[in-house]
């Protein structure tokens, strides 16, 4: 088992999948000669050639459409869209075509396409380049949306996405690319739709995904010193959503807080809260609380950007409020 970065795990997995299956090819802006805006595809053009690693013009709707066509005819395209924000230029192709083909053609075709794209704020890229609109895609039946939070999951979920016969959006995160972690050697393919209990606990469940899972784990470890036992669930997949793991945890802890980088209203946390009240209502000792981004276009100024994004302090405060409201005794 090697300790490598999230970025390296993505790169290594793309390389391994290109080598494993000749139907796999990469397509996107600046991924070949320039080796990717975030260098995930470094060296792959040289190794696999321009048929397998295709640079495109700045034309998201065009190259996503091309990938859908290729997928329908048996290839396995892995599209890189420079950031999640730019998927909006291709949203008609993604939502109206990729997500619908299999059902509307009566199962005669499928669209085994992957869209890799990083979301997230915190890099001072301002309002139009810092969004967490993954929930837009998680809303749509026919799509799958996975969100790895660790290098190991980046490897296992990307491999699973490439081998899946449905269109899968792999949500990466700018703040995670340089994070490091242990990654098991050899072939690792995750089961899409299975959440992970990344820290077991007794007193309160924190549900998170992507960057927020990393924060949640930190906060849980800090609170451990204060005698609070937090269970942290990393969703890993937003669609399908592993409702059973969430509800089983809350049935044990009776308290739940969601940490999400997206906006509060209509966000992932809203879906989790609804899931909990449907599946664990009789076990709740306090309302489910959500810690999310401020409902504003994300500011450019560093102090304002920091204030608008949820952080460890905000999560710890809400956890304490829930514990206090239920007379939690250490």
């Amino acid at each position, binding site marked *: 088992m090697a300790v490598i970065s999230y970025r390296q795990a993505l790169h290594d997995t793309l390389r391994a999948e290109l080598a494993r299956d000749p139907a796999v090819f990469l397509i996107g802006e600046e991924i070949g000669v320039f080796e990717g805006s975030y260098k995930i595809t470094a060296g792959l053009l040289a190794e696999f050639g321009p048929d397998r690693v295709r640079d495109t013009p700045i034309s998201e709707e065009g190259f996503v459409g091309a990938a859908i066509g290729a997928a329908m005819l048996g290839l396995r395209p892995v599209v890189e869209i420079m950031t999640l924000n730019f998927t909006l230029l291709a949203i008609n192709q993604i939502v109206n075509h990729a997500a619908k083909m299999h059902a509307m053609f009566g199962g005669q075709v499928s669209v085994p396409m992957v869209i890799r794209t990083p979301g997230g704020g915190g890099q001072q890229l301002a309002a139009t380049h810092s969004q967490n609109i993954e929930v837009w895609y998680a809303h749509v039946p026919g799509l799958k949306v996975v969100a790895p939070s660790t290098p190991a999951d980046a490897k296992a979920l990307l491999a699973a996405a490439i081998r899946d016969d449905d269109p899968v959006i792999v949500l990466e995160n700018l703040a995670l690319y340089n994070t490091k972690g242990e990654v098991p050697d050899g072939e690792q393919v995750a089961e899409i739709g299975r959440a992970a209990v990344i820290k077991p606990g007794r007193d309160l469940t924190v549900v998170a995904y992507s960057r927020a899972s990393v924060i949640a784990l930190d906060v849980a470890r800090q609170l451990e010193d204060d005698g609070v036992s937090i269970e942290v669930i990393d969703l890993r997949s937003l669609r399908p959503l592993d409702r059973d793991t969430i509800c089983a945890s809350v049935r044990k802890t009776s308290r739940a807080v969601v940490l999400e980088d997206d906006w509060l209203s209509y966000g992932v946390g809203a879906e989790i809260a609804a899931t909990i009240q449907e599946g664990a*209502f009789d076990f709740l000792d306090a309302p489910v609380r959500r810690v999310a981004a401020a409902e504003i276009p994300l500011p450019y100024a560093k102090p304002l950007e920091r204030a608008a994004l949820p952080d460890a302090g905000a999560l710890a405060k809400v956890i304490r409020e829930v514990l206090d409201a239920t*007379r939690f005794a250490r």
Partner: protein
Amino acid sequence: MADVLMPRLSDTMAEGVLSHWLKKQGDPVRKGDVLAEIETDKATMELEAYDEGVLERLLVPEGATVPIGQLIAVIGDGHHAAAAPAVPPAPAPPPAGPGKPATAPEPGTPTAAGTQIRTSPLARKIAHSHGIDLATITGTGPGGRIVRADVEAAAASAEGGPAAVAAASPPPEPGQAAAAAAADGQADDEEVPLTAVRRITARRLTESAAAPHFYLTGVIDAGPLLAFRAEANDRLAAAGAKVSVTDLLVRACAVTLRGHPQVNSSWGGDKIILHRRIHVGVAVALDDGLIVPVIRDADRKSLREIAAEARVLAERARAGKLAPQEFTGGTFTVSNLGMFGVDHFTAVINPPEAAILAVGAATEEPVIRDGQLAGRPTIKLTLSIDHRVLDGATAAAFLRDLKDTLQEPLRIVI
């Protein structure tokens, strides 16, 4: 509408006493206005409004003890101000007529008193499985919500407490029992509810009982010390300043501790913590408890600075206005009961500190000096030591040097 909840004002706070409302029902409030004074573990702190509007409802009477997170007031737009009484009447007794078991009302259903029972789903489920009537339980969650802890407490007292006895023998008529209890209680004993300070004092001193103590007593010739104090006060009189024996002791302990870092330490569970800075606490008696304001860096402050600071801290302590940082973080404590005429006593260590010095009164005692019997003022000093941190010889060396310092008081100030 904005709920005002009992805030967590310190890390150790579990509940607060609402000592005074500074706004009345119906008063307009702005962000930052002080709504109430809240007595926490040890200090009285101000509760500020975070919202703007009209204080529509005050839900807690003055003097009430309220767990953190509980609803204590509502700030609204003023339209609901007249709807509710300022402070709710005492909750009605559970409607349990003789021979007719009380039935649990559906949650959310208005009860006879016109209020709704608020309960968490989990609390309701547990209450149902134990056959407990939710109407008999007082909720301690936000807005009086019944939470799991409330039901579990009720279930525990029903199983092991008086309820079990009552089930075994025919219950007395409720009226009779209450009257008998009241008559008994009022005749001989008075029950005094614990104040927050009394409760925390009790808890802290009980913690101290876990430390294995040993005691060392020494006697000093206080003549030079008292003479020094008289002389110092003559000089300071023009400036309106005054130095007490306690102030001299604080400074003497502080300068002596410099040479005895092991004594300026605390018990850390799996380690001993040596403190580089010397913060000396001075025990101050309150009407309803004890508090130890701390003079920070006492070895680096002049006698006059210590005297002035000690006076201000003691006044603030008696007024209940000490800020948390003014009574925490001490590394050694001095407790002086000399002014009460106590000759000698042992003090209870203020955990997690390693030692405390108990100081008795200066009394005229016969001593033999150069073969002659003479009367000399003496003071008895008793050091209480946590044996987990310090051994006898180490503590004895400190007490010896402290005695030397006090008997040559110029060493206190140079």
